[in-house]
């Protein structure tokens, strides 16, 4: 079981209190009708599923109900940190750049 720090409750809590909410920072096409089937299909179905560091969303369902970003290693389960979605996005974009 993971131990995840909720950036809102500001405390490390057991995984049992959270629910996984998928890959983080998937961009919904701004005008879906203008996206072709392949682009839209990519957005709906395709996920990175990396071996290594992964930006993902967790929701503190048994606590504050907030969704936040976690950077987790999919092999070692190491968690590099957790951030509010906004704070995490800045870091995420920096990494992608």
């Amino acid at each position, binding site marked *: 079981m993971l131990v995840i720090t909720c950036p*809102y*409750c*500001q*405390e490390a*809590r*057991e995984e*049992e*209190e959270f629910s996984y909410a998928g890959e983080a920072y998937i961009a919904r096409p701004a005008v879906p009708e203008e996206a072709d089937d392949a682009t839209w299909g990519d957005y709906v179905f395709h996920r990175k599923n990396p071996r290594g560091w992964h930006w993902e969303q967790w929701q503190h*369902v*048994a*606590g*504050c*109900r*907030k969704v936040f970003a976690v950077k987790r290693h999919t092999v070692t389960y190491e968690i590099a940190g957790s951030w509010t979605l906004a704070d995490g996005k800045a870091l995420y974009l920096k990494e992608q750049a």
Partner: protein
Amino acid sequence: MPKQGFQPFMESPLHHFKLDAEAQPRRADGRIWCNELPHLGYAVLRGDTAEAGFAQLVEQVTGLALPLKAGAVSQGPQGVLMWTSPDEWLLVSHRQRLADWTAQLDAGFAAQQLFAQTVDSSGGLTLAWLGGTQHITVLRHLGVYDFESIPLGHMVSTVLGKATVQVIRLDGDGVFVLFRRSFADYVWRLLRRAAQPYGFAVCQLEARSDHPLFAQLAAPQPLLVSA
């Protein structure tokens, strides 16, 4: 006020356990002492702390400072106000007072055009008090949270067994466990089961006027007519 001819009665979420029938004065033995605080008033308070006037209005109406720190609980003789999320709090008080508060708050929010609201949850929640020297151990039997570490004057929202609960710790004497109506039967049975090794007893709860929660038991319930 009840309409002529109708005699409404309330039943708390733990009503069917008939706890008052087995309640006894609390003794200083090793047992776990427990009972429900039925029919309190609960309201979810939503608002934005960045909006000028929100915190002031809340404090002005309730006399309780808006807690801004995660898990913090504001207490006064008229009730408690607990942080549950950065834009969400829970108000607990006497039913009638709570109804007055929420009416004033909502009117104030509207007047000041604040993005804030109250949501009455009085029918959906209840509180149980759990005391005795081993009361924290009982929680440790049921949940993964490090209950020993809850500072006095704080609450934590976590999982007991398979139910989400809030544990409110105001003093070292015991804790208040807050849970939803539909889960009440399960949570009570779970607490009773976990307490069994230490002995489990239902205690009479006194309306202590100086206590932020026990005080709310004092006044008669306006609509309560015995069933």
